[in-house]
C-alpha cells in the first residue's frame, strides 16, 4: 500500500478504521477544503442580482430538504411522498410563532437560530409519528402513510383560521450582530446562513453514516430480517429514519420561511413532494452528494423550462398555460428516464468521472 496519502491510486485499506475515514486521500480533503472556501468567498468577488441570489438560496434550501429525503428514501429505503409536508411543518412552526407573537417579536427576529432548531425538532416529531406504522409494516404501506400525511397537512392548513387558510403569513426581518439585515443584503445573508447549515448537516450526516446509528439504516434497507437477526429493531430504525428526515425537512422549512419572509401553503403541496423526490432520484439515491446534484439539476431544468415556455408563448398564441404543462411533464420525464437508464443518478456520473481522472491515461 501507499504510505503517502497524496499519491494513493486506489483503496488499500488495512483496517476498518481506515475504511471509515471521511476523506480517503489527502487530495480529497484539500479539494473539499478549496471547494468550501470557494463557496463561502465567491459572493465577495462577484455580485449578482437578488433574483439570481434567490435562485441560489432556493437550491440550497432544497439541498437541505433532499439530504433528509435521501436519508429516509435512499439510505433507509422507505419512499416518502409527503416530504413537502414535513418541510411545511418546519415553516409553519415559525409561522405559528409569528401568528401568536406578531411577526417582529424579538424571539423571531433575534432568536432565529434556536427557532430553526425548534422547527427541525418539530419536523422530527411529526416525522416519527408518521413513521409509526413502520413498527408493523413494510415500505409499500409507508408510502401510503406519508401520502395521507401530505393530504392531512394540506387540509389542516387550508381550513384552519389559525394558519390564515393557507394564505401567506409574513415573517419579520431578522437581526444580525450588526443590526437589522437590510433588504439588499437579505439574500446574501441567508446564503451564508443556509450554507453554514448545509456544511453542519452535511458533515453531521456523513459522520452519522460512519457510526452504527447510520449504518443500521443501510442494514435495514438491504435486508431487514438479517438486520433483525443482528440485534437491530427494524421498526424502530425506520421510525428513527423518518425522524431524521423530518428534522432536516423542518430545518429547511424554517429557512424557507425566513428566506421568503412569509409562509404559504403553495410551497408545500403534493407537487413539491414529488419535486423533492425527483431531486433525490436524479441526484442519486443512497449517496450523500446526490443531495447536492439533484436540487441543482432540477432547479436548472425548471428555469430552462420556464424560459422555454416563455419563448414558446411569445411565438404561439394559444399556449397560455404552457409553464404549468411543461413543468410536471419535464419532472415526470426526468424521474422516469433516470429510473430506467441511470437509477444511480448523477452521483454515479461523478463517480465514473472521478475514476477516469484517477486512472488516466489507463482505462482501468
Amino acid at each position: 500500500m501507499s504510505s503517502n496519502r497524496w499519491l494513493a491510486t486506489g483503496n488499500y485499506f488495512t483496517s476498518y478504521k481506515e475504511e471509515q475515514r471521511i476523506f480517503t486521500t489527502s487530495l480529497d480533503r484539500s479539494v473539499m477544503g478549496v471547494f468550501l472556501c470557494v463557496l463561502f468567498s465567491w459572493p465577495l468577488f462577484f455580485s449578482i442580482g437578488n433574483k439570481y441570489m434567490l435562485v441560489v438560496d432556493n437550491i440550497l434550501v432544497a439541498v437541505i430538504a433532499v439530504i433528509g429525503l435521501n436519508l429516509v428514501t435512499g439510505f433507509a429505503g422507505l419512499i416518502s411522498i409527503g416530504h413537502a409536508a414535513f418541510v411545511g411543518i418546519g415553516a409553519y412552526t415559525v409561522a405559528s410563532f409569528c401568528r401568536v407573537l406578531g411577526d417582529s417579536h424579538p424571539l423571531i427576529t433575534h432568536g432565529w437560530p434556536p427557532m430553526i432548531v425548534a422547527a427541525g425538532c418539530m419536523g422530527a416529531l411529526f416525522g416519527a409519528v408518521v413513521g409509526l406504522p413502520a413498527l408493523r409494516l413494510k415500505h409499500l404501506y409507508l408510502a401510503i402513510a406519508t401520502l395521507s400525511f401530505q393530504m392531512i397537512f394540506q387540509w389542516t392548513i387550508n381550513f384552519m383560521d389559525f394558519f390564515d387558510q393557507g394564505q401567506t403569513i409574513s415573517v419579520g426581518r431578522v437581526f444580525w450582530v450588526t443590526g437589522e439585515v437590510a433588504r439588499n443584503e437579505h439574500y446574501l445573508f441567508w446564503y451564508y446562513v443556509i450554507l453554514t447549515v448545509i456544511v453542519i448537516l452535511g458533515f453531521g450526516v456523513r459522520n452519522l453514516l460512519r457510526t452504527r446509528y447510520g449504518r443500521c439504516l443501510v442494514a435495514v434497507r438491504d435486508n431487514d430480517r438479517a438486520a433483525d437477526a443482528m440485534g437491530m429493531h427494524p421498526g424502530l430504525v425506520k421510525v428513527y429514519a423518518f425522524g431524521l428526515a423530518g428534522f432536516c425537512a423542518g430545518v429547511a422549512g424554517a429557512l424557507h420561511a425566513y428566506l421568503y419572509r412569509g409562509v404559504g401553503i403553495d410551497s408545500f403541496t403534493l407537487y413539491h413532494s414529488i419535486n423533492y423526490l425527483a431531486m433525490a432520484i436524479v441526484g442519486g439515491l443512497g449517496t450523500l452528494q446526490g443531495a447536492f446534484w439533484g436540487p441543482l439539476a432540477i432547479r436548472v431544468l425548471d428555469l430552462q423550462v420556464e424560459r422555454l415556455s416563455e419563448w414558446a408563448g411569445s411565438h404561439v398564441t394559444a399556449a397560455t398555460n404552457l409553464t404549468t404543462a411543461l413543468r410536471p411533464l419535464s419532472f415526470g420525464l426526468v424521474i422516469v428516464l433516470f429510473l430506467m437508464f441511470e437509477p444511480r443518478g448523477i452521483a454515479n456520473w461523478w463517480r465514473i468521472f472521478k475514476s477516469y481522472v484517477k486512472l488516466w491515461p489507463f482505462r482501468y
Partner: protein
Amino acid sequence: MSYFFQLVVSGIVVGSIYALSALGFVLIYKSSRVLNIAHGQIIAAGAFITYALTVWMGIPIYLSFAMSMVITFFLAMSVERIFLRRLIGEPIISVIMVTIGLMSILDGLIYLTPFGTENFSFPPYLPTTPITVGGVSISWTQLVGVIITFTMIAGFSWFFKKSTIGISMRAVSDDQMASMAIGISVPKVFGLAWAMAGLSAAAAGGIIGNITGLNFDTLHAFGIVVFPVVILGGLDSIQGAVVGGIIMGLIQQFASGYLDGNWGLNGTGEVMPYIILLVILLFKPHGLFGIHEIERV
C-alpha cells in the same frame, strides 16, 4: 331523519364511484404488486376522452363511453409496455417511483389540453328531474352510475373467479416463478392487468364526469382517495374495494353532513378518509378482506 337517509344515499353513490376507481388500482396491484399512483390521471384521461368524443366529434354518449374504454385499454397497455416492462425484477421502490413519474407526465400532458385548466360538463342526456322517494332524492346520472359500477364490478369478480385469463392473473400474483413454469406469460398478464385497469378507469372517469362535471383537480383527486379505500378493503381484494369504497363514501358524506359548520370545521369530508387510513394502517393494516401476508419486521 330524511337528511340521514339522504346522506346514506349520496354516500352509497359516492362510495360506488370510489369502488369503481379502486377497482382498477386493485387489478394492477393484484397481478403485478405495483402501487399505481398515476391511477387518478388515467381516470381523468378516460373522462376527457369520453367528453371529446361526445361533444367535439358528435358521437352518441353511450358509444363514446364504450370507445373511451377501448382507447384507455390500449393506452394503459402501452404505458405498461413502454415504462413498466423494463422494470420487471427491479426493486419495488423504483417501480412505485416510476408510477409517480408517470403521474407527473400525465399531469403535464393533460395540462397541454384545454381540459387541464377549464371546466366542462357533459350535455344532459338523461332526465334532469331527480327521482324522489320519501324525501330522499337521487339524480338519474347517479342512479345510472351506480348501476354501471355494480355491473362492472360483478363482471370483474366473475372474470377473476372463473375465466382462464383471470385465474392465470391470480396465479401470477401468487407466484411468478411457478406460473411461468406452467406456461403463463407473465409480461402478457401484466399488460392485460394494466389494460383492464385502464378500461375500468375510463368507466369511472365517465361516471364521475357525468355526476360532478369535468374538472381536472376533482378527477385526479380520485386517484389519491382510492388509497384509503383499498387500504380499508384490503389491497388485493375486489370485494374489499367495493365494501371499502362504500364505507368510505358513507364516512365522507356523514363527516361533511354532520361535522362541517360545527366547531369551526370545514371540508372534513376531504380529510376524513386519510385520517381513517392512518388509523387502519396502525391497527389493521391488511384491511377487511386483504390476505394476511404482511411480513412483520
